[in-house]
């Protein structure tokens, strides 16, 4: 499934780019992210506790930064295994443009889920994915903007 969105962030393109490569900020932004450990500059391992309504599943997996074109764009890819729940994979093409109020961040997410969540939760998968990517980018924007946001 594909999702897209745009955020205006009150910071320069360079500042946003730096944040996009900062594991600490990424961890704060990824909903339910319990740990994000750096393997290399572009590779991380992550533990994410996803909670959608009654469903609670822990995903472990990798996050990679690809197609780096500083400070304009990159692709954030990830895949996680959630045991019985199944798995999730996705990529987000993120690009930055200068904007009157700072920087315009445009994302295009392509995500897939598999296993039990795909099999029995199809009516909710789209909404959940949208909610999680909105959460990620809005938190990301908030963290850069220095706004208070309590990560779950």
């Amino acid at each position, binding site marked *: 499934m594909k999702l897209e969105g745009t955020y205006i962030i009150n910071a320069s393109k360079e500042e946003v780019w730096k944040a996009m490569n900062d594991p600490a900020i990424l961890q704060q932004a990824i909903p339910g992210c319990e740990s994000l450990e750096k393997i290399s500059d572009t590779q991380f391992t992550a533990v994410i506790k996803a909670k959608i309504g009654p469903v609670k599943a822990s995903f472990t997996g990798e996050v990679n930064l690809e197609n780096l074109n500083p400070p304009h764009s990159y692709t954030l890819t990830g895949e996680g295994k959630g*045991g*019985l729940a*199944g*798995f999730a994979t996705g990529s987000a093409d993120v690009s930055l443009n200068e904007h009157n109020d700072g920087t315009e961040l445009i994302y295009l997410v392509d995500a*897939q*889920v*598999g*296993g*039990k969540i*795909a*099999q*029995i939760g*199809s*009516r909710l998968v789209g909404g959940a994915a949208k909610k999680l990517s909105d959460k990620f980018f809005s938190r990301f924007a908030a963290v850069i903007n220095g706004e208070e946001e309590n990560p779950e």
Partner: protein
Amino acid sequence: MPDTGTITSGGIGDAVQRKEDFRFLTGRGTYTDDINRMGQTYAVFVRSPHAHAKIRSVDTSAASQASGVVSILTGADMVADEVGSLICGWNVVDRHGEGHKAPPHPPLAHDTVKHVGDQVAVVIAETLSEAQAAAELVEVDYEVLAANVDTGSALSGPEIHPEAPSNLCYDWILGEEADVDKALANSAHVTELDIINNRLVPNPMEPRAAIGEYDMATGEYTCFSTSQNPHVLRLILCAFVLGIPETKLKVIAPDVGGGFGSKIFCYAEETTCVWASKKIGRPVKWTSTRSEAFLTDAHGRDHVSHVKLGLDANGKFTALKVETIANMGAYLSTFASSVPTYLYATLLAGQYTTPVIFCNTKAVFTNTVAVDAYRGAGRPEATFVVERIVETAARELGVDPAELRRKNFIQPDQFPYDTPVALTYDTGNYEASLDKAMGMIDYAGFPARRAKSEANGKKRGLGISAYIEACGIAPSAVVGSLGAGVGLWESAQVRFNATGSVSVFTGSHSHGQGHETAFAQLAATKLGIPFENVEVVHGDTSKVPMGMGTYGSRSLAVGGSAIDRACDKIIEKGKKVAAHLLEAAVEDIEFADGNFTVAGTDKSKAMEEIVFAAYVPHDYPEGVEPGMDETAFYDPGNFTYPAGTHIAEVEIDEATGVTEIVDWVAVDDFGNVINPMIVEGQVHGGIAQGVGQALLEGTVYDKDSGQLVTGSYMDYCMPRADDLPSFRVDMTTTACTHNPLGVKGCGEAGAIAAPAALINAITDATGAVTVEMPATPERVWRALQENN
């Protein structure tokens, strides 16, 4: 029709209540999952969450340490034990003379997984929950490959089997393409239509289950299984997969909670349970969850077709050309290859005199669960093609669809009728069914009803489906020449006990059809004994001589005929005994109503007396064996051809696109009827599944990921009571000419007839040329938007 509540004597034609109902109604049925064996263990399969992937490694180390784990077995263990591939029992030879591609189908995958749900390992533990917990700890490392799930584009998608280039299983033809093309070119009118036959999940309410058990003392295996054909399962397991002599494997299919085709096949799970039971020395039980059933039970249908029908200036059909892509799924299931070929293309004549027909079927592999026979198997697809294109032609030409059909019907005096697609219809009267159905629905009054609906903001439509099917697939010599790996006879053993009760052993299996009742009626009538005295035994390979099972509406036509033949042998022998006791010549003995009588006299012996004499042969004819126990194998001379007309009338809510079935009439010709109550019930159930296909049931695989999106009742829409109307069912009768009972089979008719009737009604109401199945409210709403 008799009132189905009537209790009568239990002879042929009586709507007698079913013998099996008391146990089912009181919760005393014995289904496979109700059986528990001493020392039993529980199996849980580790399944692929990916549609297509290489297995890099399977790590069972953590799982094997888990509480209660007895054993964890993988594909590598099966390779080491030389367990065979699950086979396809029907070799379809393609247009170039090559056999179909049947790539290996290991019961446990060891190299690649090819659909979501493909099994990789089995965890066996002391309890079910321990097995479930441990299965979660099995770590499989997959290299995910691109998935290919779309029927229409499968040939150009990622390759699934090296043995099947371009994912082509076979490219098969029936008929002469050049003749058909020429006839089409010379036709006054040609109607063309793209037709999709949607994939269905059979969903018998009882999920599959199996127990494998090995007795070290005797070297014998027992397999309890939810099978429609225990003997066929035994044959496949013994001869092809596990290499066990048939004397050492007993298959028991106890009460089975519906099958609809999906329980014909030899599956990985029962195979694994039987194999594993010897490895661990204990019984191994597996019961499918519904979620697993969605991922592993063979699905049905899934065709994409392009169809052309030619008509001359008088509206007579000149030629039919059908090009179909049929999805086989990831592996070639037990009888999958025969479904879109011999069970499909051969029915494309329908009830009509179309002189030339050509069908090309390309069977393709995809990363989806295997597709095989599902109620109707090929014939619903054929009927849908024929009845949709005929309806469309009538609308294009502006002629009454009933009249166009009538004009092209094979006439009663043309039987036996050779169709251009290899079949010989023995008998029928298609117009009689059409007339009766039109009368029942008040066809003439439809325009007035439509006008009334329009006034209430509703679109009304009427759809006819004049179907034909071929049941009781036969004879063995013919199916053998077409590639079938088995014979298609049926066996019966009729065993009188000394005190006059009768056990009838049949190789066909009952999983809802009521054999225990209908077969008892048959034997009781034939032998002239009370219905209550007859018990029908089925489903156990150690009791029943041999059998081919239940599918293709064959039980009565083939299995029933075998019983009839065995009864003939009993009567024949009884005559010898009676002649001796009555001091008359055998030729002078007549048998009627349970009595052997010397012709022209009142000298008579009842069946019970003869049977007693046969078991206590103190005064007995010389050279005649004692006992009264006869076996017959019946191999029919032809298919049977049930046919009829169903008419659906619908009302569509213009605002929402919701279709309501406001009336349904079904007039079927099943030949002679043993128990009209059971027959009616079969028709109702068949229609419901056909309505399900047309309105509700769609199987959706995500095109990118290959995940099954409709994997539960949350998304796969099963027909419920409030989705369906009451049906008005009636019959016409032309007796089958080539079996002793004159019967044809009734199990699949509804599922075959219904989809075309409904889609014809919906397209009539909306004005759309086509509405894809399932015709969901949104699809119908869009059709209304586009056509008004």
